[in-house]
């Protein structure tokens, strides 16, 4: 298992292990051959897993388990409002920051605008793990492609990679994306649905708050908006989603992409601050009295020996 083989196999094994051990690993970074071999042993489908296409074996296992009464683990869903629009010089993307797990808000301030390339960003709605994994995966593929071609990535490249990935998984990867960027051919904005269909649009919204945001866009969008008008319109649409949809909330993230530069405005607007904050701060309970302090460095007790060249990574 030399290192060169490990690199070639990294992407493939990532794919397999995402497939085979879906709930446990969301994003995997496999580099060490020893970890590689242990995963190969864990997924006993390596022998007959098809090189392309989705292996539905585990779906049958999950159905059987569900019939026996096992509750499938609930997944973190980002009931969301994500939007994008094209303005005179480029693309503006916007998103809310609430991640829900059923009726509970799991993350009050998560990031839904994902990096794909220096000139391409992607907002994701649906299952958080799916959007994260799919955008990370395609982002790495784009980087390798950039090294290979020596050119800036194009938005249609990202679009084709994403749509083929999602189509291959037949809608089981529940990721609805708004992809936007500026490349040599100009500004582009696309929406990608979980089953793999795409649209090219001047303005787009996705997620549970998409109707509320679309109401704002349909009534107020026009071509040739300036940067400030565009940012204001995007903020207004996200706020409409935040205040009219229960699955969206907290703050507004905005990302402006123009030719040659981009601006990631994290928490551009925070319309939901904590109302009552104690001015005293948090007072800890009465401290226990310290009688004696003795520090023993562990190196004296345990001998750390390096075996071979394979130190534990991470």
């Amino acid at each position, binding site marked *: 298992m030399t290192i060169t083989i490990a690199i070639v196999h990294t992407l493939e094994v990532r794919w397999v292990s995402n497939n085979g051990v879906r709930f446990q690993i969301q994003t995997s970074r496999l580099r060490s051959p020893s970890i590689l071999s242990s995963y190969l042993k864990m997924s006993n489908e390596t022998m007959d897993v098809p090189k392309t296409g989705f292996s539905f074996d585990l779906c049958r296992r999950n159905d059987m388990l569900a019939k026996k009464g096992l509750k499938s683990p609930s997944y973190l869903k980002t009931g969301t409002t994500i939007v994008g629009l094209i303005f005179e010089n480029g693309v503006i993307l916007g998103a809310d920051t609430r991640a829900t797990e059923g009726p509970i808000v799991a993350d009050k301030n998560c990031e839904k605008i994902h990096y794909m390339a220096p000139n391409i960003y992607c907002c994701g709605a649906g299952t958080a793990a799916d959007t994260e994994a799919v955008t990370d995966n395609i982002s790495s593929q784009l980087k390798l492609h950039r090294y290979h071609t020596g050119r800036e990535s194009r938005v249609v490249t990202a679009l084709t990679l994403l749509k083929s990935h999602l189509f291959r998984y037949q809608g089981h990867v529940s990721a609805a994306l708004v992809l936007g960027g500026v490349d040599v051919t*100009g500004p582009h904005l696309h929406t990608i649905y979980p089953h793999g269909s*795409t649209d090219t649009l*001047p303005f787009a919204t996705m997620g549970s708050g998409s109707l509320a945001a679309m109401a704002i866009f*349909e009534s107020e969008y026009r071509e040739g908006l300036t940067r400030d008008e565009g940012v204001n319109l995007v903020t207004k649409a996200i706020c409409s989603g935040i205040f009219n949809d229960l699955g969206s909330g907290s703050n507004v993230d905005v990302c402006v992409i123009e030719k040659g530069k981009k601006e990631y405005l994290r928490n551009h607007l925070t319309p939901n601050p904590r109302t009552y904050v104690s001015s005293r701060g948090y007072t800890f309970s009465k401290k226990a009295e310290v009688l004696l302090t003795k520090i023993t460095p562990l190196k004296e007790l345990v001998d750390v020996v390096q075996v071979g060249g394979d130190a534990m990574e991470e």
Partner: protein
Amino acid sequence: MVVESHETDGEFAGGGLGHTSRSPIVTPVFTDMVSSQTESGLLSSEGESQRTQYPYVTGTSVIGIKYKDGILMAADMGGSYGSTIRYKSVERLKQVGKHSLLGASGEISDFQEILRYLDELILHDNMWDDGNSLGPKEVHNYLTRMMYNRRNKFDPLWNSLVLGGVKNGHKYLGSVSMIGVHFEDNHVATGFGNHLARPILREEWKEDLSFEEGVKLLEKCMRNLLYRDRSAVNKLQIAKITEDGLTISQPYSLKTFWNFGAFQNPTVGAEGSCC
């Protein structure tokens, strides 16, 4: 909210045309014309049975707002039969008595039934001949009781109603859904209007709008619905009710804009990669 989506959302097995995917409990056993009364008798004799209904000819959203002099309401004139737009001249805004205006979305035949009940109500009220007349608040209450009681019998009138009116200077705008949920507000909408029109109304409605401003606001919402609701048609009526009386406009259509650059050439830069 959950029930609202049944009406105008095309998802629900396309109206009456495809209910094979539904639970088979309600499929009528007899093929000849059985009135709903005997049908319930037959089914209830089989033990506990849930009676559901499927709306067949449906109207889409109605939007109502309060303005300076009274109430403004807008509704388009489409009647959809499942996923086809079958009727294009359905009047979904009707006068009720001297002081009220009723708009309905959902099953058209149930709306016509409701109008009959209201007709009888107003008739009896007039027969008292005592100078009093039922105002919008009273009619709203009557409708609520009627809808809720029908729902309790598992035989709902499949409508979402918007009732507005002015009596003695007092403006009233309320809504009743098919399960009897009722409330009063400055702006109401039914069906898809809840998702597409109410966000706009929440932003832009203010106290004491003039007539022109009110109409402009309603048209903005109706245009939105026209773009994004598949069962909407571009033929609408706007009704106005004030202390002086009621006027329902002639049907007219809205201007729409389809010439965005991205629509003309979606594959610029990568011809052939059409989505």
